[in-house]
């Protein structure tokens, strides 16, 4: 990852210098190793603070909506999964491709600080990423983890390391690759439960929701100028956290609004302060779409219709839900 960072810094410097781009969108180092912040860099000197490590998970694609409204061209660093969201934004005319310069950056899997905390890590002073290991120095002693054990959910079930959009790549040969698991496995598991068990599961998860809107605001697909749930005139404004229907409504409709559009970037779950596995809602839609209408992954390309804006005369009937196994 350090090698990728060096490539990023040097290319960004060159492109800024020769005027090919006016701004660079990357990650800036934070207080701790694990908290880089998305940031714009407009001088070569400022690039010293450009970081790229196992905690550069925050996706940059969505920032391009505002960034490309301004003058000049933006250099953006996109991890493979971020390129899906980039394509989706292009498809919906949210981002001006002409004003972007995309460097696809190699990814060694992003790490989950919450998983580390759950494993008892506290008082972090510094970290080192050493190949497939992560060493953490804390106030309460050093700890070592295998990278594969502390990957973000979205990375453990990675869709693949191919960039779906880029002007050039910064992918060194020696990047750590990892074994991924089936991204639909957990969805299948839930499908195998009884209706009552599923209800209990989701009630448990969704009742933790604090309606902070982080999932929505981080989502590259939820890019409405004004969300229906924020609009007093929509008739469904939902600010209250009534620990009952509201969260169901919000999350079902949010998932439905991004159905067929969701790039499965996993940001919703990553940013959820309550660790609600929101991606399982979106993946359910993706899984159903694949089963009902043929394989489709939003963001793989800019062209073509999405499953909910097209149809076939022989499509499955909604009654298919009743024909499925289980209860």
């Amino acid at each position, binding site marked *: 990852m350090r090698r990728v960072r060096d490539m990023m810094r040097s290319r960004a410097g060159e492109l800024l210098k020769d005027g090919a781009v006016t701004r660079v969108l990357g990650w800036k180092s934070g207080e701790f190793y694990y908290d880089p912040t998305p940031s714009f860099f407009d001088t070569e000197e400022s690039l010293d603070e450009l970081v790229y490590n196992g905690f550069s998970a925050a996706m940059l694609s969505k920032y391009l909506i505002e960034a490309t409204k301004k003058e000049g061209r933006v250099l953006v660093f996109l991890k493979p999964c971020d390129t899906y969201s980039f394509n989706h934004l292009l498809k*919906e*005319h949210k981002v001006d491709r002409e004003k972007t310069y995309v460097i696809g950056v190699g990814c060694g899997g992003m790490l989950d600080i919450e998983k580390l905390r759950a494993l008892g890590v506290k008082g972090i002073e510094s970290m080192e990423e050493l190949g497939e290991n992560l060493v953490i120095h804390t106030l309460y002693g050093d700890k070592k983890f295998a990278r594969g054990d502390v990957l973000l959910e979205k990375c453990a079930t990675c869709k693949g390391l191919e960039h779906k959009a880029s002007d050039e790549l910064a992918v060194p040969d020696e990047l750590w690759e990892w074994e991924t698991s089936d991204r639909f496995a957990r969805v299948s598991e839930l499908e195998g439960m009884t209706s009552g068990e599923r209800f209990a599961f989701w009630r448990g998860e969704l009742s933790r929701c604090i309606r902070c809107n982080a999932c929505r605001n981080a989502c590259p697909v939820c*890019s409405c100028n004004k969300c229906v749930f924020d609009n007093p005139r*929509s*008739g469904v404004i939902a600010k209250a956290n009534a620990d009952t229907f509201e969260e169901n409504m919000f999350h079902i409709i949010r998932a439905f*609004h991004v159905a067929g559009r969701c790039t499965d970037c996993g940001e919703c779950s990553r940013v959820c302060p309550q660790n609600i596995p929101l991606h399982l809602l979106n993946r359910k839609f993706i899984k159903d779409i694949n089963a009902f209408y043929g394989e489709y992954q939003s963001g793989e390309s800019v062209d073509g219709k999405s499953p909910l804006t097209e149809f076939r005369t022989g499509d499955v009937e909604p009654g298919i839900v009743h024909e499925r196994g289980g209860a």
Partner: protein
Amino acid sequence: MQKIGVFVCWCGSNIAATVDVEAVAQASLSEPGVVFSTNYQYMCSEGGQSAIRNAIAEHGLTGIVVCACSPRMHEATFRKTAAVAGLNPYMVEIANIREQCSWIHRDKEEGTKKAIILARAAVAKLNRNVPLIAGESQVIKRALVIGGGIAGIQTALDVADAGYEVDIVEKTPTIGGKMAMLDKTFPTLDCAACILTPKMVDASAHEKISLFTYSEVESVSGFVGNFTVNIRKKARGVNSDLCTGCGVCIEKCPSKKAKSEFNQGLCNRSAIYIPFAQAIPNVPVIDRESCIKFQTGKCGVCEKVCTAKAIDYAQEDEIITRQYGAIVLATGFKPISLESYDEFQYNQCPDVITSLEFERICNAAGPTKGKVLRPSDHEPPKTVVFVQCVGSRATVECGKTYCSKICCMYTAKHAMLLREKYPDTEVYVFYIDVRTPGKSFDEFYRRAVEEYGVHYIKGMVGKVAEEDGRLIVQGSDLIADKQVIIEADMVVLAAAIEPDPTARSLGTMFTASMDTNDFFTEAHPKLRPVESPTAGIYLSGLCQGPKDIPDTVAQAGAAASKVIGLLSKDKLVGNPCVAACNEPLCNGCSTCELVCPYGAITYEEHLVVDHGVRETRRVSCVNEAICQGCGACTVTCPSGAMDLKGFTNLQIMAEVDAICR
């Protein structure tokens, strides 16, 4: 706040017997906004209507709820009543307490409860209603017909006869289409040219009809009543105004190696040509691919021999912009390519031909002057095998799933003509079924079998092979349950027909939807068979589905009558219950456009001012003249920017709330 009046109808005893109408009227008085309620024996009668009018005036009502029969029955009636009393007609809601209440529930108490809830829902909705005003648009009194075959010609003639201007755009150098290529027509066996060419002449001579041959539609904009179309007039290389049609250029042209499209490639034509003798207009076209002048720069014979000085090598394509109120698609068909049908040896054996080629061979003006001769050696065939359903009703990938409809009849015609002209020729027909649903069709087919002794074999041909100059046809006879092998001299394949390939791009241009086979779809398969779902676009002839000449002419006339109906109006009054975009909420994401069946949605860069934030951005715009108000866009819109007037999100949710209360 609305001032609502609720009017409960007894419908004689139809409602009053199972619903306590007085109770419904009383209960609705406590609903928000309701200031008046009453009940009456027959609300739709003059007495009832005048009661409504009086109440509107007396109580200053802003909206009315009529609790009566289905809105499908009398919504229009009560809207008119309201309008007469000065109320906007869309401030009327109907609570269906007859079909959906009194007629299905026997218990009066239950029925009354339900009627009260239905009234409540209607009031809840009405509280969210706003007056709607239907838009008007001008109608340009000219029609465009795309395609100059029999369908296009007939539609154009009918529209022109009604007094409206019509333009025909035809991509080939002449009008006439496929019918001009036919020899005789079933079931009457009259000569195709004899019945078609007078119509072609009529069309060209009609003062209201302008022909644009060798022309194609380039682009279109606008909407019903007001389309703007760019037509590309391809360069003929001949000045139509000067050409006298003498034909000397054609005669003298030294390049005579191009295949004649009109004769299905069975003979050659010159580089400067007219497709056939009766072509209209009788103005030649230079085929630049085979013209020596265009290919090498030398020659120029035609220019030299033309006394009218009509040859113009420098002529360029010309774009003509015209406006139309209505557009008729009459793009026709073509036989499918038989390239992937190796079993019939179509590409390999010259004596395996298509039915359309056979038409040309039979035709007195055709390549053989009407003598039926084998293409390979110009000998008359002694045994001819016809194969039906080649590519029709297919289960294999390369074929068409539908029945091409005309093949059974023309094959019977071919067989009959052959036996008549050459009684010693043996004629076999392989068929899956013989389909003869048409006036005098079955009689015609039976004559072929019974009087002309054509051998009909139920079964398909598995293979055709050439052996010593003869064609060995292997097929199955399903009735005899055996394999048959026929040594034939000629095999005629009834190739399936498919929409002309240019239809696809036109369909996209006009947002005229197509089915999976690229036939244009109708606005309604039963009730609106000659209209496209896109308003102002009509369908004529084979582009909508396989049909024979009488059906085509009938549909052409039907399309013409729809066009005339439209053009006879000075203004179009729209349906005000259409989609509308709330620009500050719109994301410009395009999903609404993708689901609109009518192409009513476009995108424009607008300055959007939202609470003091000014931004110029891409937003969705609904053309109210095109929108039909289905609401598909409203649900696909994630931000709720798109809403449907008359059935807004808030109105429907108010109904839901009222029902579930």
